[in-house]
């Protein structure tokens, strides 16, 4: 009886261990990481004589310099998701506010290729080294986070006038 219990216990253990197997071939849905850009606006309060900065929505048309397709086409947005180049270290976007002023946003970055798996291939992550923008409509741009490794974080802040 003792031996039966021992063998049964071992069989159960083997089954339990095998059941721990997960599905290891599922790839992440997004194979592209993007730079998250939050839009802010600075306003002057004459009563208190202070500047206040608040999140804002802007009607923007956005496309990458060198690309034929637009990323945003005039819709009101409060944040942008911008894909960077994987083979060069400078990426420039055009930001057209309403139908008036045009600014360019340039992101300087390094690219880091990460092998995920045979089935999923490689992801290219980025590190933002610097960012600048022309100042027709934009007041300034600051870096909030340098590591670009997913699609859900904000990395830059653009302050509109």
């Amino acid at each position: 009886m003792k031996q039966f219990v021992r063998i049964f216990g071992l069989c159960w253990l083997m089954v339990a261990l095998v059941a721990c197997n997960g599905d290891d071939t599922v790839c992440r849905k997004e194979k592209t990481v993007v730079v998250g850009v939050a839009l802010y606006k600075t306003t002057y309060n004459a009563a208190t004589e202070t500047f206040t900065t608040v999140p804002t929505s802007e009607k923007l048309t956005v496309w990458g310099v060198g690309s034929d397709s637009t990323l945003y086409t005039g819709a009101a947005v409060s944040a942008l998701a911008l894909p960077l180049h994987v083979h060069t270290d400078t990426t420039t976007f055009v930001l057209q506010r309403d139908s008036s002023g045009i600014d360019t946003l340039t992101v300087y970055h390094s690219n880091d290729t990460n092998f995920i798996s045979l089935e999923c291939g490689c992801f290219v992550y980025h590190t933002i080294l610097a960012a600048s923008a022309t100042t027709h409509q934009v007041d300034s741009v600051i870096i909030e986070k340098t590591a670009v490794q997913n699609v859900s974080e904000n990395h830059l802040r653009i302050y509109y006038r």
Partner: protein
Amino acid sequence: MNRLRYVIIVCGLWLVAGTLRGQSREPKSPSDSVLFRGFSVHLDIASPLMGIAVDKGVITGELQFDVNLRNKFFPIVELGYASVDHTADNGARYRAGVPFWRLGLNYNVLKTKAEDGSEKLNRHYPFVGLRYGMSVVNYDLLSVPVSRDYWGETAELAWSGRNAYAGWVELLAGVRVDLAKGFTMGWSVRVKLLLHTALDNNELLWYVPGFGRSSGTQFTFNYTIGFNYRTRYERARMERF
């Protein structure tokens, strides 16, 4: 994954401790002085068939050599060779072809002694076992795609002529059946857990010969046929039954 690793290691220690404790309770007999009872050589024929039927592009084969110690303990060496050439749906290709080895012990879970201390005859026996396996994998990773659709950028990366060692542990249970004239066959199921590799990213070793897919715990089945050589003492003992 770490928890699973601890579970397997603890189970292995429990097996060893339990078997040694059980052994010490059995009364001593004159036959206890005869340690070596024979050896056997077995060829695994399940893994090559599984390679053809399930793991496309995997060719593998292995031999097992074990030594019979009092019909209870069976120290074992397993030597094999596996080659793999697999192309994923995205076009990425993995190639490797190297030998591997495993060291371990099988333990006959049947009682080998009667109440009076005399040895019993166990022509067929179920066993449990533990293995440590190792392989130095020479591998090629080819045509791994990198792309950024918006910019129309595509490239293929390759890691050619790389090598890295991999070590793993296996917990198994099986049956050894005595056929006739020394010929035997057996079945076993194994749970395998990759313990360590020389790489930071184990995914680079898509398939480790002797282990299997490097991601996650592996479960394999072996069916072996072979020959069992018994010592003169053991043959004489068996003739008495």
